[in-house]
């Protein structure tokens, strides 16, 4: 699922720190914005926009963090509004709903662990590419040189 790859150049100390922060950003936002799935996306997005003109390594990791948050947004929002409709409308708790919530928790947890791991590795200047998101980022984020 997670591959350690060699980046096109050796990132500097400052780059590694900023890249690592992009993942930490989404982690902190998860704690703050747990009930509202949009908060962590906004946090990562702001960080992404702030570092758009940064070096390739930083941009690359900001993009990966943003993309992973984006897909979680869809999954989490659906679960969020489903829960709201159960609380406020005539919807009732079904096995289908509980199964969805469990699936959401599993995926969020996986993402959470992957994020922590990646944050630690990028801090050390190690380039980590995720399954799917890594190759997607490679398509979006190109080296300027």
């Amino acid at each position, binding site marked *: 699922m997670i591959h350690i790859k060699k980046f096109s150049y050796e990132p500097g100390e400052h780059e590694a720190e900023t890249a690592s922060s992009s993942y930490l950003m989404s982690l902190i936002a998860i704690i703050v914005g747990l009930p509202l799935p949009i908060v962590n996306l906004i946090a990562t997005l702001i960080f992404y926009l702030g570092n758009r003109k940064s070096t390739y390594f930083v941009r690359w990791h900001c993009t990966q963090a943003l993309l992973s948050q984006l897909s979680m947004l869809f999954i989490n929002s659906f679960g969020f509004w489903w829960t709201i409709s159960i609380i406020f409308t005539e919807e009732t708790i079904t*096995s289908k709903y*509980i*199964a969805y919530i469990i*699936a959401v928790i*599993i*995926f969020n947890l996986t993402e959470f662990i992957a994020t922590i791991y990646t944050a630690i590795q990028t801090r050390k200047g190690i380039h980590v590419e995720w399954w*799917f998101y890594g*190759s997607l980022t*490679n*398509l979006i984020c190109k080296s300027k040189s």
Partner: protein
Amino acid sequence: MKKTIIQGIITVLLFFGTWFALTQIDWVKVFKVQQVTDKTEQKLGELFWEVFKKTEKESQNPLVINSVDSIVTLICKTNKIDREKIKIHILKKDNINAFALPNGHLIVYSGLILNSDNQEELTGVICHEIAHIELNHVMKKLVKEIGLSVLISMTTGNGGGEVIKETAKMLSSSAFDRSLEKEADIKAVDYLTNARVNPEPFANFLYKLSDKEHEATKYLTWISTHPDSKERAEYIIEYSKGKLTEYKPILTNKTWNNLKEELKE
């Protein structure tokens, strides 16, 4: 590029696969999620009815009972509703009110009958309440207002008598959500037209009482708890437009007059 798309599809499939696999387990049973059963509803119906039975006087007059029964039976018959399900009770009270309790208990106050100018008005209100019963609004409201756990504890005898009394009072003196009220109104018009009863007097009844709203509203429970009577009257009229025009009274005029006379005493 191709690799990314395939990986993306696999990721999406993985999520839905996980969800699908998890739905194979009956989580509702695993987590013992409480759900309303027929038994709960039956018991609640009895409990709430007991409250009213103890505090109010039920009319035992055969003419009154039979007349209202004729109306309810005809409505049920023409709308394919199980007559056994609706348990009608007429209470001697001046309030202009009618309401539904769980398990098909339908309570009509004599004040409502006395203040109806004609039988169509009364039939309209009865249809509205039957619609609440048929659409399962009563249990929905109870679950929403006081919660399932409290309801279930009531039926098992753990709920205090005071809670039951308060809840029964709430059911008799508060309306449902706007959307539920509208749904019941529209359904009531359907019931009325199926039974060949003119729905217009039902709308007029709302109009008439909404005008009185500023005066002494002491007895106008049914109207004061049902907001926007004018608006309701309008959409009832709108909805009943173009429906059949050949109407037939359920009770003879003589019976209707006798019914009112009997209740006045």
